[in-house]
């Protein structure tokens, strides 16, 4: 799992480096709000990167961290859990302000079981997700995305953490750090 994350990070870094030196690129960072169907609010941060180098900005690479620690577990007894994601999306209408996208994410999920007596429960898992949604670029250097994702790997009561649910919705608001 760590290898997958490391590889994704390396690919993003190389892409960014190459884009900076050769082609125009867009790097946006922002906040992410995530709601799992019949489970928690998990919020966090995210980044979105694209470049002419990535098929004329049709491909976006992304990275995010969302946790119930910044959502449901902040105000209640929800299980504290973290999601680290890397992914790639294909953007349709990439030259327009209003875009549609579909992509694939992978990453790492961890649920904090807090006490030794619950160590017997599975608390780590790889993430594998399909995601689709809408992406809108404002006239000023801000973009937003609204999407629905499906966790292909989800809790089964035996080997996969029980709070890894199949469907979630997310809303992100990004600020372009290299655009005015």
């Amino acid at each position: 799992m760590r290898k997958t994350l490391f590889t994704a990070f390396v690919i993003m870094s190389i892409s960014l480096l190459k884009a900076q030196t050769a082609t125009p690129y867009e790097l946006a960072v922002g906040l992410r709000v995530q709601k799992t169907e019949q489970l928690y609010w998990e919020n966090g941060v995210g980044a979105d990167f694209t470049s002419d180098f990535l098929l004329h900005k049709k491909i976006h690479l992304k990275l995010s961290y969302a946790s119930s620690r910044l959502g449901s577990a902040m105000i209640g007894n929800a299980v504290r859990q973290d999601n680290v994601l890397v992914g790639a999306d294909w953007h349709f209408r990439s030259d327009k302000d209003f875009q549609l996208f579909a992509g694939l994410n992978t990453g790492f999920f961890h649920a904090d079981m807090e006490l030794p007596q619950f160590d017997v429960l599975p608390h780590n898992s790889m993430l594998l997700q399909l995601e689709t949604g809408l992406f809108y670029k404002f006239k000023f250097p801000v973009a937003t995305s609204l999407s629905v994702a499906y966790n292909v790997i989800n809790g089964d009561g035996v080997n996969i953490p029980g709070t890894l649910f199949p469907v979630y919705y997310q809303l992100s608001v990004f600020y372009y750090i290299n655009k005015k």
Partner: protein
Amino acid sequence: MKKNKIYIILSFLAVFLAACNPSPSLDDKTMLDYGQISYALPDSLNKHLLSAYLPNPTPSQLNTPVIICAHGYTATTFEWDELRAYANTKGTFLVSQVLLGGHGRSYQEFKKSSWEDWQSSITEEYQQLSKKGYKKIYLAGSSTGAPLIVNMIKNNFFKPDSLPKGVFLVDPIIVSSNKTLTLVGLLGPILGYLTVDMAAGEKGHWYVYRPQETLKELMALIDLTRIDLEKGIYLPVGTTMKVYKSEKDETADPVSAFMIYKGMRTSSGGNIEVEMESSNLHVFTRLEGRDNITAEQRALQQKAFADMESRMTK
């Protein structure tokens, strides 16, 4: 041309709607779903409910611990028969096996029941036993029986003059192991119902078919209970709670036990007790009707029964 397209779309829609919410074929009389076997007949109720099989308790019986046992989704009183047999052997406590509303009757009766109907059998028996003057009332809930009891606590059902002494939860469900059920609101009308495989010995004691309407009720109940636990639920003064949970469970996700631990507090703010069991059975205290029971599984069941007994009789 346009008209043809509209006709085609309408035909597809008609076929789709006709295929929605299909019903199972109920032609096997040995199935509980058929309606010929009924746990809701007076004979059965009189045998299982303490308020019925002991209508005039003696003062000594009123001081004996009694435990009201609530079974799980699609099950019947059969799920607690072995605790009843254990109690009969020991003679130290009495058992009342409630049949949840809509259960143990027929597919059609089950289909139209709500989780509030399921719960009403527990509340009615509790009121009956309180009225008769039983002093030491305990509750036990297996699987879906557990959130039904937790909901009673959360809603302050228990009155100060008749508080339960303790609550036992066996393999409680707060999160289903089958995560696809979280989408039952969307997929339910297309599926209509789910079918469950069961051992020969379980036939006639559980519904084979799970109507999507009741799956929605189940999901509504456990989602509500999860949210209530997130907010925090306090036990009544003097009431204890112990949870027994299989480490692996393909029906009620074991994380349910952790959620109850985090969400439930004693009246003074202390933690409740949770014991994770080395088992892969759902409701490990019910072994009758299963195939290939091991000595370890039998020992675990007896250990749980003995623990419950010692807590009720100490």
